[in-house]
């Protein structure tokens, strides 16, 4: 008979028992409590108006609901219903718009099946195929913004959506790495890791599931990160340019 895993009611004991049962898995304990009760607590704190106003800022009023939605602890319908209870529909618009993105990704996954792991469309710019290198995997690129993103990913299993987009763009367009190699690794660390949302978002950045590549510049990072990295940064910044100049540098004339 297979051995049954006993899950202690006390969380600290439970985390320790999982660590002991899966000796091949390493890293820090999960800082985010799982389960429906924790998900409902998060949901009760969601302020759709603050979310609309500030969600693109790293210190903005993001919801943290994604791990709970991913594991079915709460449903998209429950999240929408909460938002409509606390504000009129038009003020919940942005929040519900983002819930719809998740539903859309999932429908695409159901439609395409395992093909979501491959280019959905022809890339609109030349993409690289290099595997994920150690300096990126270990957060040793020398760029404080990117290395902090890797540290947060590895330590917490969560990264703000805007930082995910910057990181994906850095990997795919500035480093010319294989989006698939990066997306597989990135998803494994996320506690909200979802094949549809993760891989199709990487493809959206890469331009294999979107009309153009997503790129960003230093000005964007400064604005939405609260200048948390750039102020003291001494690295030679690859992002410090205008969008037309970056586009020419990264893609030649094809994307300008």
């Amino acid at each position, binding site marked *: 008979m297979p051995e*049954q*895993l006993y899950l202690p009611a006390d969380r600290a004991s439970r985390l320790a028992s999982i660590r002991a049962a899966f000796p091949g898995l390493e890293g820090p304990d999960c800082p985010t409590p799982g389960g429906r009760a924790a998900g409902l607590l998060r949901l009760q704190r969601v302020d759709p108006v603050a979310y609309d106003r500030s969600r693109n800022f790293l210190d903005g009023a993001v919801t943290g609901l994604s*791990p709970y939605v991913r594991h079915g602890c709460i449903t998209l319908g429950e999240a929408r219903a909460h938002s409509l209870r606390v504000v009129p529909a038009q003020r919940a618009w942005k929040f519900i718009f983002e819930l719809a993105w998740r539903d859309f990704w999932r429908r695409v996954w159901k439609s395409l099946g395992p093909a979501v792991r491959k280019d959905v469309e022809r890339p609109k710019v030349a993409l690289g195929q290099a595997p994920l290198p150690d300096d990126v995997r270990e957060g040793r690129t020398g760029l404080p913004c990117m290395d902090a993103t890797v540290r947060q990913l590895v330590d917490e299993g969560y990264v703000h959506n805007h930082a995910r987009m910057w990181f994906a763009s850095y990997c795919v367009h500035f480093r010319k790495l294989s989006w698939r190699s990066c997306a597989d690794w990135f998803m494994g660390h996320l506690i909200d890791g979802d*094949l549809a949302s993760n891989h199709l978002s990487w493809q959206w950045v890469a331009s294999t599931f979107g009309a153009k590549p997503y790129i960003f510049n230093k000005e964007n990072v400064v604005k939405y990160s609260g200048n948390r990295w750039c102020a003291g940064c001494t690295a030679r910044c690859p992002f410090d340019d205008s969008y037309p100049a970056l586009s020419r540098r990264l893609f030649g004339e094809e994307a300008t």
Partner: protein
Amino acid sequence: MRIILLHDEMLNPEHALFSLHPDLPRVFVFDTQQLTRDQFSLRRVQFMADCLAEIEGVQVYQGQTADVLAALGVTAVVTQRTPQLHVSAALAAMQVEWHDEPTFVDFRGKLKRFMHFWKAVEPQLVGVRDEPDSRDAA
């Protein structure tokens, strides 16, 4: 033996299948092949363990799902439909009663870009309003 097989998209103590089949044993398997293939972190497994700890009476195992179910003498399974192929592959030799996941919005058109989808479902979800077409790629 017939069971409710929980997979990692239905970790909810109030899942509809529990009231539909209150007498069936509830089983979850940490599928070692999936954990390896998808490079799952310790944190992810711990998060799922938190979810499972809320579900009354669930039996939790680790191993390859098909092997665990075979060893338990499972011949029939009730579970939630999922695009995760490893779930359907593990159940290939079983009698399976699939149940659809909760529906967020009704959409029967052809999937194109998100904004095409959004324009079709927006009236159901929030009513109609004019808004710029963007994904906040600010």
